[in-house]
């Protein structure tokens, strides 16, 4: 493989391109899905290919192929070069792409048990058992259990002399119970909605989730929701559990701080950001309790890796400090807008996509409260848990979320369950209303394996560490009775 790579980089140097890199990526995925006692999905996916990125005549070109041969690499290089030269006809501002010191290194996710070494029978058994427990409750009409394992082996090499090999292993699992009665449909999931919780860990992570132990309770909650009262419509105090807060961070902090989005390159797709580079250093993003870090190094985080796809080492970077925005997610090409160097967030969805600025693990640092204290300190409000829906505008400022379940808080105690809870707000106003964050004991990493960005579409695996937190004066119950 090294010979193939060196050959292409030699050609790049001969053609006198400003910069070139090549990534060869093999990704294996295994997914298992059980529904109502039947294994509906048992699949293995093997995806292999390479992509070549070239900076030439002040413009980028990228081409890729699934045929990993010397001849095809030459043809793909020629195509990428042709594309870069054509693109130079409609250039914007001059691309500033600072050089980076060459790195020759290897990185491998530290794991105890490779999920691909565990027999499928064992995995099926685990999921079928959890599914069976869910269906013991007769009002559960759809029971589901999911498991996914992913192994990505990638080689990055550049004309600057970098040669980096990485093996990233990820896995996760989850269960959900759907209760249906007439036109009412309610879902409860564990440990999180949309297939569970994922981490850069081995099969030991799946075992630790203990799906079977939680199946009975979530089935019961799904059924209780059928007869729960609707979420009230009012402005109130809101306590979010850590999994919902993870998505709140994702949509209203993680995406807005991507510097490529801020500079407009996502304008025609999911939109830009309300932030501007000049707001760094003084914009009050949230209350003084809010400390956000982008940490690509935290053990187990789904956004944890060794090096990004531009050959920059993984970093831990403070983004919001005591409520003030102090940094953004950057790349080699964009960091100069902040007069800084890249903080290593460029990642591509496999061999067939170019790297974009992606979240790593965007974590909210823990506070001082226990959840019990937080609820006891709240006279009136709602406690919401587990995401059900999300939507945010094209500047990442007006958001609306729905969760699977909520509980009223009255005089410092959890009260009745409410169904179809929703809340809405304006990003900086919401984060500035935060007056309590859970402590280290409540802090947990959540993996988001479905973060979409870019055209052609790219899905990134990112993480969020959070503890429950409290927000004041939030509009809840946005839905009129339909």
């Amino acid at each position: 493989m090294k010979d193939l790579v060196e050959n292409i980089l030699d050609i790049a140097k001969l053609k006198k391109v400003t910069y070139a890199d090549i990534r060869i990526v093999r990704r294996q995925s295994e997914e298992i899905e059980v529904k109502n006692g039947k294994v509906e999905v048992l699949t293995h996916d093997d995806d292999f290919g390479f992509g070549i990125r070239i900076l030439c005549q002040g413009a980028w070109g990228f081409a890729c192929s699934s045929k990993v041969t010397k001849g095809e690499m030459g043809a793909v290089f020629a195509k990428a070069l042709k594309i870069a030269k054509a693109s130079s006809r409609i250039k914007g501002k001059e691309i500033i792409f600072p050089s980076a010191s060459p790195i020759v290194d290897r990185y491998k996710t530290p794991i105890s048990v490779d999920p691909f070494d565990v027999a499928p029978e064992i995995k099926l058994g685990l999921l079928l058992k959890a599914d069976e427990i869910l269906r013991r409750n007769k009002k559960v009409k759809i029971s589901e259990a999911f498991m996914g394992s992913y192994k990505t082996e990638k080689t990055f090499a550049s004309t600057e002399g970098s040669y980096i090999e990485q093996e990233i292993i990820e896995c996760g699992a989850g269960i959900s119970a759907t209760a249906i009665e007439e036109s009412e449909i309610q879902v409860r999931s564990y440990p999180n909605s949309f297939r569970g919780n994922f981490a850069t860990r081995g099969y030991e992570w799946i075992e630790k989730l203990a799906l079977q132990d939680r199946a009975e309770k979530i089935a019961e909650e799904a059924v209780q929701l059928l007869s729960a009262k609707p979420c009230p419509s009012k402005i109130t105090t809101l306590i979010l559990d850590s999994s919902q807060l993870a998505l709140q961070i994702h949509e209203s902090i993680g995406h807005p701080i991507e510097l490529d989005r801020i500079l407009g390159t996502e304008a025609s797709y999911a939109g830009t950001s309300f932030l501007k580079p000049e707001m760094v250093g003084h914009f009050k993003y949230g209350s003084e309790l809010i400390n956000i870090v982008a940490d690509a190094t935290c053990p187990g985080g789904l956004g944890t890796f060794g090096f990004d796809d531009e050959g920059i080492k993984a970093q831990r970077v403070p983004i919001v400090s005591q409520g003030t925005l102090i940094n953004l997610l950057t790349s080699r090409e964009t960091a100069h807008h902040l007069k800084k160097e890249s903080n290593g967030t460029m990642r591509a969805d496999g061999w067939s996509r170019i790297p974009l600025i992606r979240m790593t693990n965007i974590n909210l640092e823990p506070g001082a409260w226990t959840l019990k204290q937080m609820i006891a300190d709240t006279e009136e409000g709602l406690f919401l848990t587990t995401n059900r829906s999300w939507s945010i505008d094209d500047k990442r400022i007006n958001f609306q979320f729905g969760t699977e379940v909520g509980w009223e808080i009255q005089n410092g105690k959890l009260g009745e369950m409410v169904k179809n809870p929703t809340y809405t707000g304006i990003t900086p106003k919401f984060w500035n209303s935060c007056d309590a964050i859970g402590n280290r004991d409540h802090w947990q990493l959540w993996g988001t394996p479905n973060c979409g960005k870019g055209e052609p579409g790219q899905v990134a695996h990112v993480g969020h560490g959070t503890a429950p937190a409290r927000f004041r004066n939030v509009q809840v119950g946005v839905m009129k009775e339909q």
Partner: protein
Amino acid sequence: MIERESAVDLLKKVVQSSSADQTEAILLTEDSSLTRFAGSAVHQHVAEKNLTVILRAVLEKKIAVVTTNILRPSSLRKSLQKAISLAKVQHPNDEFVSLPEPEFLPETKTFSENISRLTPNNKMGMIKKLLRRVKEKGCRGSGAFSNGEVEMAVVNSLGVEAYQRFSDLFLHLIVEDEKSSGYASFVARDPDQLDVDSLAQEAIQKTSKEEPIQVEPGEYEVILEPYAVSELLSFLGYLGFHALAVQEGRSFFSNRFGEKIVDEKVTIYDDGLDPEGLQIPFDFEGIAKKRVTFFDRGVAKEVTYDSFTAGREGKKSTGHGLIPPNTEGPIPINLFMERGESSLEEMVKSVRRGVYITRFHYTNVVEPMKAVITGMTRDGTFLIDEGEIKEPIKNLRFTESVLKALSRVTGVSKNRRICSEGTVYSRRFVTGTVVPAVKIDGFNFSGVSAL
């Protein structure tokens, strides 16, 4: 491109060498390019070539799927063995009847040789022309222009043999000035149908020099352009128009067939063979596409099936199987809404005070059984006052049942257009929805943008 004979031969060899009771092999090839521009400059231009084989092995009623893009004969043999070994440890699915039997497939032209004209240089020329029009009006343009050639072949051990070659291109454009933005998009199989001047003009005319005003959230009469209507239909397709959702009791159609659910001006159907859409003659199981009518003048009528959901009910597939393993159900991908009799201008004139909406942004499901969704308006939202489009308004958040909205339709335009998001996250397979503009008497807005 590997062409019909090689594609089918490759798959037949795999299927014939299989020891499984039934075997299905799908080949998808892609040769595509996508160019993105923002702030009137190209910032990304990529090209991709990929070939993928999807193998479904069936041992009695035990099924496993293996996907690979390593097509060396030894790798394909290994993948087939992997599928069979996974099927062996699988648990039987008693509801599985069989992979489909072969049937007649209509000849449909889905490829235009003109697609080869979209070289990197030619595309740059077209984008340059587009951006010149935008700049002449003092605006900036951002968007994406993509073209591709795709092959799809399906072979199974019961004799199914299907092959189709597709070309496609899509271009979407957002034009911005200091105060507002406008949108236009295009999709087709033949690049000769693309007129960049008129596309630029369509987006430019949505921009405004006026500062957007804020209107209070609440219920308004609305005019939805086809882009917005298309989004609503896509959610109905995903949530309820297919057999799996009905069988699981999670469709808004469950126990309601024959009932009038939406206004009689609303007829919605799926037709993979209608040339007004992006034709797809057969599904990913190699079965011919049948026309399926979901709402016939407001009445819930029928849903789509693949071989699995059809087998459960002793019916025949309607040709809506998606790439296996598919747990979402046979979601329709060639949606149409019947045209009406009004012109867009007449519909606007009939609004006393309302909101004109070009498109929606970041929509998501809030309550699936009632088809309640939320999202924002974007790129061309205006106040309508006494039958005239007036000043732009700040984007609004809606939270509304699509079914309730369609039960309040008071006007449907006679002109329709094909709308497409292009290709989203998975393999390239561009689809389109053909819809008119509609007028709705009462659409619920739950919030307003802060900007």
